[in-house]
């Protein structure tokens, strides 16, 4: 029994050598990569069937418990018995290709075994398709992975010979010869088959892993490149930074040359052949035009495809990658190669990946810009809102004043006009000079002052040194309004509001304080901790101001609120000193 095991293992060793060589042949390897359809299923079944036939020939012939063949199995006498190794190939077929492939390969092997003959030919024939089918089903049952692990295969490999032995006993009952054969070959077959199947599975697993690793590398590279290209893409259009991108791709991808083109001309060229591939050349090749139209990657496999006018041009092949933005192909990136063979699947994957990633990033940037624009429009819309009550009250005031003090009435009318003009104007810009904003506030203060002259005193102080400071329009006025409407609501006399603009280190501080009722503790908590304030408590003005300051000048310009210990409250914020324009999206 031991000798038999060793003989079987030797034979299987030979088979494994052949299989190993086959997995190194590129054409054969490509069989493993293919997706499964009807055609591939048939091809696979045939390939494994042929392999199973070969394995049968690598088997041994027994006669009265003795191995009688030295070489391969060719002729089997009717009283001899073949120990075929075909089950190994069949199990692999089933595990790798599923039940149908297993069954197909099994049938091919079975037909061959019938022609070989010998004792037990019927059981040997039957076991092959059955094993293929069962191995396929078992593989599916245990694991969803493409190739099951070698250890699982080791286990599965134990059972085909057992099945074979049992079939022999079923089909040749009360036959001493068969029982003797089973006792003799059962164990060696179980051992050798399971080991062989495990080794095979491991081998195929390695081949598939290699492919996956290559793809993974290419993906990683594409991601790195796309990430590094981000700064170029973010600021301005692709055409502004064609040079930068070409350089980056040339350094990272290691191809012979890179060119970046717009829809009709070359914007940048980097690498071999840059002496005659000049910037500004028109795009002429049909392939490039096709890429522009179809938005799909095109591959130029010959010099005629590239159509370089210079006969000495060392570039022979190219991958042309279209870059799309908003459904239009706006640009092409071309990878040039010196030899057609240099284009491997990896390069194609890489090119595809880069194209997709850059296009996606452009899309993302575009949508980001769009979002910012919408937000801007919304903000301006808010700013443009004027309280109609204010307008009516002021008109009423003016009407009254005309009788008492026509000069004052004229002055107030002009202030109202200024105020209104400003309000109309603010829709056009997201940031204005602080001076303008101050005029606006002053106009407002004068109007209010005229209305409530007996009730409150508004004081405006500005340090002269500040200049060229930008502020979102209509930021201070709502705070003053807030003070009047809420802080001093119940104050009938001696109301006092101070608007102070001071320089504080490198920032400008704007303070609006009053001696009114002050804020709720809860309200302060809400505003200072970024929560939305309760809108019906008059917080809407404050809330809008805060939102605008944060979105236009950043988190550090947020509004703070404090209550004075005695009476009244203080609202303040800071804005950058100098022409710092961040996050404006003004264009």
């Amino acid at each position, binding site marked *: *029994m031991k000798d038999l095991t060793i003989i079987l293992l030797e034979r299987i060793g030979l088979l494994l050598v052949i299989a190993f060589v086959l997995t190194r042949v590129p054409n054969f390897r490509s069989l493993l990569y293919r997706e499964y359809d009807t055609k591939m299923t048939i091809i696979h079944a045939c390939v494994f069937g042929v392999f199973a036939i070969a394995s049968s020939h690598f088997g041994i012939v027994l006669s009265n418990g003795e191995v009688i063949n030295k070489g391969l199995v060719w002729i089997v006498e009717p009283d001899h018995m073949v120990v075929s190794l075909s089950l190994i190939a069949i199990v692999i077929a089933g595990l790798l290709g599923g039940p149908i492939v297993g069954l197909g390969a099994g049938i091919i092997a079975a037909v061959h075994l019938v022609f070989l003959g010998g004792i037990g030919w019927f059981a040997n024939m039957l076991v092959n398709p059955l094993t293929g089918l069962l191995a396929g089903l078992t593989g599916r049952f245990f694991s969803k992975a493409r190739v099951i692990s070698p*250890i*699982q295969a080791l*286990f599965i490999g*134990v059972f085909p010979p*057992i*099945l074979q*032995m*049992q*079939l022999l*006993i*079923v*089909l040749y*009952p*009360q036959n001493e010869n068969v*029982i*003797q054969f*089973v*006792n003799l070959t*059962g*164990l060696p077959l*179980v*051992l050798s088959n399971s080991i062989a199947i495990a080794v095979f599975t491991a081998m195929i697993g390695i081949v598939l892993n290699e492919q996956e690793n290559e793809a993974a590398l290419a993906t990683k590279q594409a991601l790195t490149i796309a990430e590094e290209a981000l700064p170029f893409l973010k600021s301005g259009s692709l055409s502004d930074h064609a040079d930068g991108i070409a350089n980056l791709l040339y350094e990272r991808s290691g191809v012979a040359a890179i060119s970046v083109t717009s829809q009709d001309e070359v914007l940048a060229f980097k690498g071999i052949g840059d002496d005659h591939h000049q910037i500004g050349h028109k795009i002429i090749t049909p392939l490039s035009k096709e890429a522009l139209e179809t938005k799909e990657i095109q591959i130029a496999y010959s010099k005629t495809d590239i159509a370089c006018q210079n006969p000495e041009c060392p570039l022979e092949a190219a991958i042309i990658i279209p870059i799309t933005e908003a459904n239009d192909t706006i640009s092409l990136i071309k990878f040039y190669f010196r030899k057609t063979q240099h284009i491997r699947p990896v390069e194609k994957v890489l090119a595809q990946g880069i194209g997709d990633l850059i296009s996606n990033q452009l899309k993302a940037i575009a949508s980001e810009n769009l979002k910012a624009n919408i937000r801007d429009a919304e903000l301006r819309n808010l700013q443009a809102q004027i309280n109609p009550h204010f307008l009516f009250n002021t008109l009423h005031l003016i009407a009254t004043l005309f009788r008492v003090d026509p000069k004052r009435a004229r002055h107030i009318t002009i202030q109202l006009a200024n105020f209104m003009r400003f309000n109309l104007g603010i829709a056009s810009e997201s940031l204005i000079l602080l001076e303008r904003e101050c005029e606006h506030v002053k106009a407002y203060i004068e109007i209010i002052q005229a209305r409530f002259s007996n009730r409150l005193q508004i004081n405006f102080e500005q340090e002269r040194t500040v200049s060229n400071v930008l502020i979102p329009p209509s930021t201070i006025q709502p705070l003053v309004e807030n003070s009047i409407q809420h802080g001093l609501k119940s104050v009938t006399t001696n109301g006092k509001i101070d608007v102070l603009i001071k320089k504080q280190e490198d920032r400008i501080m704007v303070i609006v304080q009053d001696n009114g009722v002050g804020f709720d503790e809860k309200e302060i908590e809400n505003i200072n901790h970024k929560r939305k304030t309760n809108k019906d408590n008059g917080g809407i003005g404050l809330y809008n101001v805060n939102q605008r300051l944060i979105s236009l000048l950043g988190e550090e310009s947020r509004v703070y609120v404090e209550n004075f210990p005695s009476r009244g409250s203080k609202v303040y914020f800071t804005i950058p000193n100098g022409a710092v324009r961040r996050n404006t999206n003004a264009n």
Partner: protein
Amino acid sequence: MNFTYFLFFVCIVVCTLIITYWAARRSKTTIQFYTAAGRLTGIQNGMAIAGDYISAASFLGIVGAIALNGYDGFLYSLGFLVSYLVVLLFVAEPVHHLGKYSLGDVICARFPSNQIRWIMAIGSFIISIFYMIPQLVASGLLLRLLLNIDYSTSVLVIGSLMTVYVVFGGMIATSWVQIVKTILLMSSTFLLSLIVFSYYNWDVYTLIDKVKMGTPFGDQFFMPGHLLTNPYEVFSLYIALILGTAGLPHILIRFYTVRNAAEVRKSVLTASWIIGLFYLMTLVLGLGTAAVIGYDYLIVADSTGNLAAPLLAKALGGDFLLAFISAIAFTTVVAVVAGLVISATTAFSHDIYHHIIKKGNTTEKEQLRAAQWSAFAIGLISTLFALGLKNINVTFLVSLTFIVAASSNLPVILFTIYWKRFSKTGALIGMISGLVASLSLLMLGPHIMNVENGWILREPIFNLYNPGIIAIPIGFLGAILGSLFFPSKEEIDFERFYLKAQTGITLRREGK
């Protein structure tokens, strides 16, 4: 033990350990440990249930029983199959909907109470342990017969294997070991039955003639009355078998391992099919044994008939087939005991440790730790017991577990799910009376009190080997009377509960 046996044996051990290793990487949370995260399909779970159910005792024992006793042996096996009707129709889906990890969860879904949980846990624990110890003892004896290794070694091997599966692989490893076992067992019995038929050239009449020649009963072999003579005993046995299955915790917790009710139904159906087909094939094997081996030879080899299947395999296919069948028997043993370890573990670590001792305040990690330690402890203790009980007949413990399950667990489960007026006190009284009745009747019965070889050498006070006929009604009566005398004080929204039990939908009513 020759090399072929050893190799198959090693192959099975290695395979199950691979499964455990694979499962261990997926048993990182309690839900994975206790229920395989509900990721099994209905068919896989059905195979696992069948794996839980077909013990080595029924594989080898039933074949032997049929070979020795003919029709009665087959009738005995039918009870196992019918019991699945009760499981399928009344219990399976509600258990899936109501519980999370253990059987205690089901009752506590209606009566959240620590007392109930205690009793449920103790009941489950007793059933699982009492079921496990005879299995271990029997398998120790069996392996000694089959593989010729001594009793202690085989018990130690099986005990440590089952502990390893459960501690490291939890429910995932246990389930897959059972699935593999079911596939192997089914395919090998199928092939062995084919071999039996082919041995007689596919001629059933020849087979039957040979059977008649092989047994001392002759024509009477196919008639009842050789094994089961006392009608009360038979009825009692059947009622315990049929009702007991629906209360066995290791079967019921398997319904947590699937995703939804459809899969639950599919798993019960698959399990019933597998078990049905299996017992049909044991019939063929039993007849084959009677025909090929013959009564006299079988009795000489082992008076219990347990060696019927292995002897048949050897006669038909030589050493190779015998080795294979022995390996299958071994797998059967380890799979069944692993299922029992996990059910005992759940009862202890989930119900007692997590809910009662720690009041539900444990982290995921602590729960998993606790489950693994309790699995280890349970494995160790049962192995030690099995080692100590070598020379004592403990097979009656198996019938005890069925009676306890039928008289203590089942009434409470059924009433909880279906009876509106059932109360918490009723549940407690039902469980305790069922438990006490079955334990005491067994103590007073001829298993323990026996003039010839009992633990207490005197005439049995109670004369039935299977006290199910008395104990089960006591359990049901206890639950009913308890509920009628001590009705629930607090109002329980039974419709809502019933809806959840039957459909898994939790209804949110106003004000709830």
